[in-house]
């Protein structure tokens, strides 16, 4: 029951209608049952695993909150290791046991589904692990009290709009909302529907359309030239953004139908003027998780250990930044998958950030010397473009099937022999979609903030704009039911 299926829309509509008929005190139960039903529509056996994780973490959190300092430190380490081990076991199962032929049964609700005869990562396990770790660490830090209601706790972890791909919700943000009584709120429901529509536009019209060209080039890299690779990589940058942010919009929009506000995961990342800013705008719930639970604790730990002012004539704080950021982004890369490509993708971002950190004083002097105005539109455009190019380079490693393919593509980008692969249809549809996306995001970035694509006080114009989105989806959307890219992570 993936988001881009009609069955999901029917499911959502039924649950939403029943939700507002259901008695207030039991609404959580309906949402929990709906979440279990949603999860069962994939591979039911994994629900047992999730149930075990929920139960174990529920009781451990209560134990953790009541333990004294010494014991709680030991307990949190145990909890972290346990959760990470479960995630790692399933994430790397096929690497550990490459010949496994496990028979996993998926549920065929309407379309027939293929039998799954090899281990796959249980849906949402990564996001659930990060959410639960965030919860446990906050309990340890005593910034929150453990949730004593097992139903609310289960719903916090399993809430169906966010189970598959996040956002990774902090307990302070979502758990209080679960305790609130949610009444029908017209504005919130309409906002949710608008956001979902924008999400579907991004997924069906932009991401899946661009994916046709990207797959054609990246899956047959030996047959394409540098221009094809440049276009495919630019397309991939927009494909993965439209895919993931489209998913997030549908998730947030779905949650709003029930009166919940989920965290935003994206804030126009391709308008970032630096790599640091890019990560403040890209997959925000994950990047802030990495910052708060890996980078900052590690930097703090190192600053307590590295007592000298300088090492090798370089300030200690710069070394600390380098180590902490490289480790953080290496973990970020490994989390995405096994293989050197993901590791290099992560480390590359770590290196970008280290370079920016180490040279910031130098660039400050340069700007001062040449009297460059940082607020100048030309300088901002230069920064946006240079950041985008660096991100593109990283995306090559993310998308390529192997390290040798990635290096081949990087090398080939600078050669122009061979045929330029042109698929006019995808080009026209894809570029039109990208232009609409850029225009909408430009308006949000430089004119008025907001998560909705169109902000206008003219309701007739609004009816026209949102109606047009539906027509465009019907006209050029790709309805092959392809999965969201981040499902696999």
């Amino acid at each position, binding site marked *: 029951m993936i988001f881009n299926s009609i069955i999901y829309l029917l499911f959502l509509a039924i649950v939403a209608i029943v939700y507002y008929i259901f008695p207030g005190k039991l609404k959580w139960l309906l949402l929990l049952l709906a979440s279990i039903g949603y999860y069962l529509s994939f591979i039911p056996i994994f629900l047992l695993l999730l149930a075990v994780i929920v139960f174990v973490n529920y009781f451990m959190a209560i134990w953790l909150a009541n333990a004294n300092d010494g014991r709680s430190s030991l307990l949190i380490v145990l909890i972290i290791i346990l959760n990470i081990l479960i995630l790692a076991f399933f994430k790397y199962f096929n690497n550990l046991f490459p010949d496994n032929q496990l028979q996993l049964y998926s549920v065929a609700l309407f379309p027939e589904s293929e039998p799954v005869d090899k281990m796959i990562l249980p849906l949402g396990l990564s996001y659930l692990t990060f959410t639960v770790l965030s919860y446990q660490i906050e309990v340890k830090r005593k910034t929150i009290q453990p949730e004593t209601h097992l139903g609310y706790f289960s719903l916090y972890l399993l809430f169906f709009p966010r189970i598959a791909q996040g956002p990774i919700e902090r307990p302070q943000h979502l758990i209080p909302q679960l305790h609130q009584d949610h009444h029908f709120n017209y504005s919130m429901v309409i906002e949710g529907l608008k956001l979902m529509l924008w999400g579907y536009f991004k997924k069906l019209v932009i991401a899946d359309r661009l994916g046709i060209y990207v797959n054609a080039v990246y899956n047959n890299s030996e047959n394409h030239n540098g221009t094809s690779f440049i276009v495919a990589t630019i397309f991939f940058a927009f494909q993965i953004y439209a895919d993931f942010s489209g998913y997030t919009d549908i998730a947030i929009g779905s949650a709003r139908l029930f009166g919940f506000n989920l965290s935003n995961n994206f804030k126009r990342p391709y308008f970032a003027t630096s790599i640091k800013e890019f990560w403040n705008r890209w997959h925000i719930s994950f990047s802030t998780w990495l910052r708060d639970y890996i980078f900052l604790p590690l930097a703090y730990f190192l600053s307590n250990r590295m007592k000298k002012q300088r090492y090798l004539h370089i300030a200690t704080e710069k070394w600390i930044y380098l180590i902490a950021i490289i480790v953080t982004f290496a973990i970020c890369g490994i989390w995405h998958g096994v293989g050197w490509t993901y590791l290099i993708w992560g480390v590359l971002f770590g290196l970008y950030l280290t370079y920016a950190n180490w040279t910031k004083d130098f660039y400050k002097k340069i700007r001062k010397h040449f009297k460059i105005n940082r607020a100048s539109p030309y300088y901002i455009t230069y920064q946006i473009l240079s950041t985008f190019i660096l991100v593109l380079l990283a995306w090559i490693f993310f998308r390529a099937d192997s390290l040798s393919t990635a290096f081949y593509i990087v090398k080939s980008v600078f050669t122009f022999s061979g045929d330029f692969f042109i698929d006019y249809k995808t080009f026209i549809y894809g570029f039109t979609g990208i232009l609409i996306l850029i225009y909408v995001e430009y308006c949000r970035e430089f004119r008025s903030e907001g998560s909705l694509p169109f902000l206008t006080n003219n309701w007739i114009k609004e009816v*026209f704009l949102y*109606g047009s989105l539906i027509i465009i989806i019907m*006209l050029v959307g790709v309805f092959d039911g392809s999965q969201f890219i981040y499902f696999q992570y």
Partner: protein
Amino acid sequence: MQGLNFKIFKIILFLIFLLVSDRFIGIILEKLYNKSNDINISKIRYTLYDTHEDILIFGSSRAQHHYIPDTISKITGHNSYNCGLGGQGIAFSFIQISETLTRYKPLRIIFDVSPNILLDKNSDQKLNILTPYYHDNALIQNILNSSSSFEKLKCTSFIYPYNGLLFDLLTGLVYTPHVSVKGYIPIYGLIDTTTIANEDPGILQDIPSDQMKYLQKIINICQSYKAELWILVSPIYKETKEDTKIIQDLRDFLFQKHVHLLDFSKKSDFSNCMLFKDNLHLNYYGAIKYSKIVADSIACSLK
């Protein structure tokens, strides 16, 4: 209360806007579709409703690129048309053959099958190319409904049947079709023999039951109309173990059904790489040679 009425009014207006736009744009798209000279659109339209030739060739891209109707017509003395369409599978050919036979009985129905098409489990999923005919053609409607649970719901929209076709419809307005090729599309260039995979898959697959079902349907409908069906496997540059197994399975199946299989997949005349564009496709020169051989066989049988 006034606020609530206004909200309901806005929702109703939104729905009216959608319905009217859907209907209006749908009508325009239908008109564009019927006028389009786009090579695929006009070919689908022609093969479903207008063919009248004595010899018809059906199949996927291999059919489309391997059989030259002019060559076949010249040798056999009977006019012919290549109905093959790249990217489509057996389900599509079944619809074409069924629609043809409801109109008339050609002298020969040549159906080109290839191992990759027989193994294609998603033959049904590719049929959305036929959604423009959903409302007018009962057979297409039935097959599309059975391939997707929500096709009926989607096709309540007048725009959806033309999903993804806007570009083809617009370019089709200015495109002038090459009538003389009669459905055949030549491909040029030579195979890069270094790109052919040497490894065979570990587990050899069987022909999926869905594909067999459509093959059976094609045989049944031809037999019920007493139309002469020839099933051909055209040349493959380098046959894999899987190809060999699939062709043998096909031969066994057709033997039971008393349908003759003409297998050119291993014919020594086509061991020359100069005749191929890739492992599965003959180039223009290969197609000339192959069409002559097929035409000779047809001519012999017609004498």
